[in-house]
């Protein structure tokens, strides 16, 4: 068992932190360049080969590693040095409960492609995420710079506020899937539901059998469309990238909490934001877009269909591959969406960020819980 956990952990860290996160820095540059009719990063080369600018992440790392690591005068040295780590670690360990594949059976052994699937799955992510605040707040405080302090205070207020709405926005999802375990949520979405089934359930109007093909994948986004929008908004604000970048606020407080950071410590803040982008994509994909589940094609169908020809073992292996690729595809699409939003929307003013949280998202999320409960009381739980 420990060997399995270690293998899964190493795999997920290699894929997410080692491969995906550096590429995202390139994606962000290239996507913004395309959106703004520029060419974007294309200069870093090895013997004239630029690979469309894909060498830039490596060049960035080299540059950041060789830069001087400045600790400002009068700063709290220990906190200043440790803050980037406090910010980066929660982002990495959050992936421990996000499933990147389903539950498979090889004879007697069961393989569940998630590092840990505790009873309190999603609460773990909220708990870990709430600790990330300290990295930012401490960075702002320990720098002995007024702009940094302002950034740190903004970060603490913003992140606490959006934690509340983030939690309330997904209560509807808990109610629909009746679980907090992310793997169980993904399994519950590995099926379909009748598009007109609500007529039957809410109003007692039977749906004719010839309309039975009219089915949607049982994804969270179809049960909780408002929850999806609110959760995506709240968690993007929690990540404090534009349009919610008030703690950084380039046009107001220079660079906010990481103003006094240089070299790889600055790079670590930058990196943790990009890792969080991947975590957000994985989390939203798992809760709202079916996770690893292939739409309209359940695991049982694949294993039944392919397995009858090539044997169950082969079919299960194929399932693992397809599910992982499906999950990665959904993650990539959601990363693209976050990047597109980041380069499309103008940044919010600080008071607007707070208004959005407390005056719009909070009442809406409470209303969402109420309506979800009401519908489930009348129609029963969907699963």
């Amino acid at each position, binding site marked *: 068992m420990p060997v399995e956990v270690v293998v899964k952990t190493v795999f997920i860290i290699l894929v997410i932190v080692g491969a995906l996160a550096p590429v995202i820095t390139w994606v962000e540059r290239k996507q913004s360049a395309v959106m703004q009719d520029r060419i974007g990063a294309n200069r870093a080369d090895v013997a004239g080969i630029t690979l469309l600018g894909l060498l830039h992440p490596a060049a960035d790392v080299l540059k950041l590693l060789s830069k001087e690591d400045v600790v400002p005068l009068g700063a709290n040295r220990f*906190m200043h040095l440790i803050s980037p780590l406090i910010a980066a670690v929660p982002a990495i360990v959050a992936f421990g409960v996000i499933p990147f594949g389903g539950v498979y059976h090889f004879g007697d052994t069961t393989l569940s492609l998630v590092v840990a699937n505790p009873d*309190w799955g999603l609460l*773990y992510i*909220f*708990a*870990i995420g*709430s600790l990330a*605040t300290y990295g930012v707040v401490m960075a702002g405080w320990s720098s002995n710079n007024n702009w940094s302090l302002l950034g740190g*205070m903004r970060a*603490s207020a913003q992140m606490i506020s959006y934690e509340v709405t983030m939690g309330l926005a997904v209560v509807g999802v808990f109610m629909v899937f009746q679980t907090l375990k992310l793997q169980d949520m993904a399994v519950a979405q590995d099926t379909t539901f009748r598009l007109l089934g609500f007529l039957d359930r809410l109003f007692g109007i039977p749906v004719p059998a010839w309309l039975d093909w009219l089915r949607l994948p049982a994804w969270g986004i179809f049960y909780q469309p408002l929850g999806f929008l609110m959760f995506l908004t709240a968690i993007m604000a929690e990540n404090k990238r534009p349009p919610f970048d008030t703690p950084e606020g380039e046009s107001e407080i220079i660079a906010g909490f990481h103003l006094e950071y240089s070299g790889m410590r600055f790079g670590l803040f930058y990196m943790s934001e990009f890792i969080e982008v991947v975590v957000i994509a994985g989390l939203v994909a798992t809760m709202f877009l079916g996770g690893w589940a292939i739409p309209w094609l359940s695991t049982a169908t694949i294993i039944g269909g392919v397995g009858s020809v090539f044997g169950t073992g082969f079919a299960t292996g194929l399932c693992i591959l397809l599910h992982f690729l499906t999950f990665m595809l959904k993650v990539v699409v959601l990363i693209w969406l976050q990047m597109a939003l980041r380069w499309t929307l103008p940044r919010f003013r600080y008071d607007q960020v707070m208004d959005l949280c407390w005056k719009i998202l909070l009442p809406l999320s409470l209303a969402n819980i109420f309506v979800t409960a009401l519908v489930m009381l009348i129609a029963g739980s969907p699963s």
Partner: protein
Amino acid sequence: MTALQVLFYAFAALALVSALGMLFNVRNAVAAAMSLVVTMVSLAGIYVLLEAHLVAAIQIIVYAGAIVVLFLFVVMLLNLRADEFAPGRQWPTKTAALLLVVAAGAHLVRIVSAELPEPAVPPAGFGGYALLGIALYTDYVLLVEMASLLLLAAIVGAVILAKRKLD
């Protein structure tokens, strides 16, 4: 020692060291608050070892993740420096601390010297959110509603106080 024991002693040591760190950093409010966070997180680790998973999650989300962040927010807002904690009359606190240490030490000696009972086997679903939720919303629903009313009153009070200052 099993892995669980190693984890327990590690978390326990961390909790003790960080709690002491909080005491000895009393002049530096931010460092004290950060030590408090480490104490909270190590306690959450001990709760997980005791199978009280929900308590651990709430410990981190509420105490470490929200309340101490608010402490920090206030400390930073006031921007307290070490020299603003002027030493006042110290003998009452020192006497009280000495008495507490003696009492706690006596208690500790009694616990350590006593025979430890067999650990109970937790029932199925122990420490999860399901049992707690059912208990809260069936047996203790009146208390939950009373607590929420109390919180509502506190929120309204806070808004009124803040608004009077603004107007």
